[in-house]
């Protein structure tokens, strides 16, 4: 049985992406006890699946390394991975929370030596790379994965492969008997930081995401550009592995649209502007990017970044909401629509189309146990009447990384306000 020490002065943080990690670290570095619960087998969330950040073009793993060092140095944070909150009862200052823990089938003896991965034969879809590649069924999700511990995929439990993994491990780290368990813990305050998911692109029927291999999403494009991604950083289109030198970016794919997401997802303009750099980086002047947009929302000092991209002769901007994507005989996706500036019709073929899909809160439609208000888009709203569970990061709004971290820092204080009150009452 997993044991967790938690009291009514403990802060529970749900979600181990950059927002959850931030909330947990800020609270713990202020002296609070924190339990951090993450659904994946590793921390870092969606940021670690990005190749670079705008506007500095730096790498998300750099900040992750610092956050992990903070975490490793801080005994006040207990991390639970493969864990999901299933129930919350009680009130602010005295919650009782049940957490379901899925088995990793690898215990803390694991040294990440990799022998189990070499022994196992089954391959599974690589979720870390948005299923763009395959990995062994005993795996370390990424080189930066924390906990630095392998996972035996549930699909091979009970097979000879699982036994091979067990036999390969010299350290008794593979535990095939591990069972799902539900534990219960106390918390005074809860930070809900479950982040976002990319809008389901197949719902935008006229873009044919599920029909055309060479129509992909912006988050998938990050993995193609990343040297640690499934193509080793080569921008190859899925249909035939050909270099995608002529790339179209379609803005507001699902965002700012009453049929899909009403809100503007804020990050996607900057993300596409950033991704034009990937095309340039990969192919030099042979790489061409076209951004189809309604408004370019490069807010505040990000304007500098936009202006710089605008001076790149290999990047063109078309003010248009693309009406439809078709495919030509060569398997090239063709963008059809009207360029609003001058009202010209176009039907332009590209090697690859990247849909700048927006942000949908992961909490949308989820029944968060406990009293949490959300707006009609599904984002958690601040609720003065219920001051014990607080949203943080992209669970509360469509935010870029910087703003998500701000939000999480604010949420940490709101949680501290509650547990400090408990502490004063208990003193």
């Amino acid at each position: 049985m997993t044991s967790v020490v938690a009291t009514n002065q403990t802060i529970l943080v749900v979600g181990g992406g950059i927002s959850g990690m931030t909330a947990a670290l800020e609270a713990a570095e202020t002296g609070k006890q924190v339990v951090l619960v993450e659904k994946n087998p590793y921390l870092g969330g969606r940021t670690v699946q990005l190749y670079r950040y705008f506007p500095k073009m730096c790498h998300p793993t750099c900040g992750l390394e610092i956050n992990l060092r903070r975490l490793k140095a801080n005994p006040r944070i207990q991390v639970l991975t493969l864990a999901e909150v299933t129930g919350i009862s009680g009130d602010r200052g005295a919650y009782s929370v049940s957490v379901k823990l899925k088995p990793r089938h690898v215990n803390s003896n694991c040294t990440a030596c990799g022998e189990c991965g070499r022994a196992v034969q089954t391959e599974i879809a690589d979720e870390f790379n948005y299923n763009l590649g395959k990995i062994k069924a005993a795996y370390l999700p990424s080189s930066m994965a924390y906990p630095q511990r392998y996972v035996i995929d549930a699909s091979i439990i009970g097979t000879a492969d699982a036994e091979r993994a067990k036999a390969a491990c010299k350290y008794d780290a593979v535990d095939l008997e591990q069972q799902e368990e539900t534990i219960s813990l106390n918390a005074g305050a809860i930070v809900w930081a479950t982040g976002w998911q990319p809008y389901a692109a197949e719902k935008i029927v006229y873009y044919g995401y599920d029909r055309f291999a060479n129509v992909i999403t912006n988050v998938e494009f990050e993995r193609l550009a990343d040297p640690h991604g499934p193509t080793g950083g080569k921008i190859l289109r899925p249909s035939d592995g050909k270099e995608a030198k002529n790339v179209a970016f379609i803005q507001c794919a699902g965002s700012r649209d009453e049929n899909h997401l009403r809100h503007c997802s804020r990050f996607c303009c900057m993300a596409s502007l950033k991704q034009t750099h990937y095309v340039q980086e990969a192919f030099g002047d042979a790489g061409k990017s076209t951004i189809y947009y309604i408004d370019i929302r490069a807010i505040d000092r990000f304007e500098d970044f936009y202006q710089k991209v605008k001076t790149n002769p290999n990047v063109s901007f078309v003010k248009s909401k693309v009406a439809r994507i078709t495919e030509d005989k060569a398997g090239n996706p063709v963008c059809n629509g009207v360029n609003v500036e001058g009202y010209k019709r176009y039907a332009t073929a590209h090697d690859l189309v990247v849909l700048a899909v927006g942000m949908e809160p992961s909490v949308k439609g989820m029944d968060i146990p406990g009293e949490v208000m959300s707006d009609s888009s599904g984002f958690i709203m601040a609720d003065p009447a219920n001051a014990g569970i607080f949203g943080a990061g992209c669970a509360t709004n469509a935010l870029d990384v910087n703003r998500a971290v701000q939000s999480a820092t604010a949420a940490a204080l709101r949680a501290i306000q509650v547990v400090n009150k408990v502490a004063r009452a208990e003193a």
Partner: protein
Amino acid sequence: MAETKTAAYICKGCDIDKRVDVAALVKTATKSGKMNLVREHDFLCSAAGVAMIQNDIDNEGVTHAALCACSRRAKTEAFNFPNTAISRGNLREGVIWIRPDTDAARETTQEMAEDYVRMACAEVKAMTVPGGNPNTGTVKTLLVVGGGMSGMTSALEASKAGYKVVLVEKTGALGGWAAKLYRRVPTREPFKAPEDNGVTDLVARIEADSNIKVYLSATIAKTDGAPGRFKVEIAIESGAVANEDIGAIIQATGFTLYDANKLPELGYGKSPNVVDQAGLEALAIAAAAAGRPICRPSDGQPVNKVVFVQCAGQRDSSGTHLPYCSGFCCNTSIKQAMYFKDSNPDIDTVVLFTDLRTPGNGEDFYRAAQNKGVIFSKGVVSDVSAAGNACSVKFKDLILNEEVNTQADLVVLATGMVPTSGPDLDQLSEANRVAEGGDPAAKQHVVELMSKSVLNLTYRQGPDVPQFKHGFNDSHFICFPYETRRTAMYNAGPVRRPMDIAQSQEDATGAAMKAIQAMENAGLGRAAHPRAGDLSFPTVRLEGCTQCKRCTVECPFGAIDEDEKRFPLFNESRCRRCGTCMGACPVRVISFENYSVNTVGSQIKSVEVPDEFSEKPRILILACENDAYPALDMAGMNRHEYDPFVRVIPIRCLGSVNTIWITDALNGGYDGVMLMGCKHGEEYQCHFVKGSELGRYRLSKVGDTLKGMNLETERVMDLEVAITDMATLPQKINDYAALIKSFPPSPFKGF
């Protein structure tokens, strides 16, 4: 203090024992490492292995332990021995995982492993467990400068967590910019109509809060001290001076609107019917007070048509006006158009924009305006001229691609935010340098700049928080938006970055979090981010100091002042423990208990340098622990092989590299030195701001030393490394090693 007892532990797990001769490593730790106790273990990070070490600490009196196993980044939970000095010898990621398992490689792999054992032993012997900063201050009162929405929010949120707050506002009333608004942009569902500006409510809550002390018509005359023990003098308009003991500071001094007088082509100043957004709010408030619609200022007649000009003096690439977008103004114009539409739907309201920017739920607000009949046109305004009571607006319609002239009763210019962030420190230091010549005009310039100071810090490096871009006090880090360059000082609201009220309030809450954390940690002698919790701090041996001032000038965080005798005066609580001062010191009198010229220097010296006939060069790599060292680790995890003649030492920052390490290495017969640090320059990635830049600057001076030693200048190489370079880094190391091998062996071997 307990007697020093050293121990080395050699792990045999993860095939270390198959790849190297562990018995020989034990001998190395005993003979050359001179450890008092040496043990090997099959699986050192297991419960049994950890218990063995703990038992030695508890019962054998071990105070210093060299753990020769995996990387210092791995198995940190297992190898957690507080109050014991620990070093890590990286035999796994650093040796066996980056070398081929072949007979040919066996000898060099063994030599590599033995050197890493020697280095771990040498390092741990040179370390002591940090005892904590004795000069702590335990004041837990927060100073908030600025009484607008951001400042009031910070004050209330800190109070709610149980902290005392001193709130200082320059004007005679709280409320700032928001108090000048008739209504504000909606913050809650359904995001369709302007809402109350919220100021009255916040002011009432401040006034009712016994934790918050407010000074109105007051400014900060002087801020002295360090986190946890600031002494702040508050100058009040009446002439009185108040003194407050402060633990941390939030600067929420807001912004002013860009001066529309600089936009004569847009008609401002030429007609009273051309106003900026503040002007329109004033008209709306006056109209509401009089119970009438908003009227035309020139003659008080009704307004039939209003044109809003977006990006007025903003997003300007010509260098004349603001280069950035202020982010809030699109929503503000939408709100102001609604003032008219809500009172009379027949009033024409036209918003001229190039990109309409209403992120998040602002989209609902935009849509609501469209539904109310507000017209949005993509166009660039070139001229606004006044003719009698009407204004003529000339713009290029970007959709129809034609020049258009339109008439309006009122034109509103959406000018942007200019932060109230005090003088730019680089400008000020340049002004000070010029003024040293005694020129009265130059002196006057310094006085003028100083008069803009917000905090009036007595810091050696200037009176305010350094600025980032365009005058804003923002952080340079995407993952760490609150990293200012002065410990326990945080900026909140539009002084940090252009933002609207809702974002400012969120920001102000986050800033309060960081300020509270800084006060708590200052009281405990702990470092602030990014080495949060670090108890070590720099100490200086003043008897050796030559008063060269390099440490006081180079410290990226303004932690070091000068005392009356011109010696450096360290303010430990301001320090972030990067070691830039240690790297800067030419006489090497600055050190940390667990990171010093000696902890690294003794490792360099411990490596066995084969003689010149062996054809086994030695190359020292000093690798930044945040990016380069993890990249090397991951190269190992992915079994990317590299040259066996390199010896890697992690360093806190390139800025902490003292050139003595390089000259010692070369004098000791190393054939080359490679430094790996992160990106510097405008898009720098160094989390100690200037560390990698300063380190590289110092390095650029090493060339002369090399020439003096008759060595090729290429023997010292500086490589910019990102954490993702795991696949390419080995090749770069190998290329460099090949270059070194093309030179004759170092003539200093064997001395």
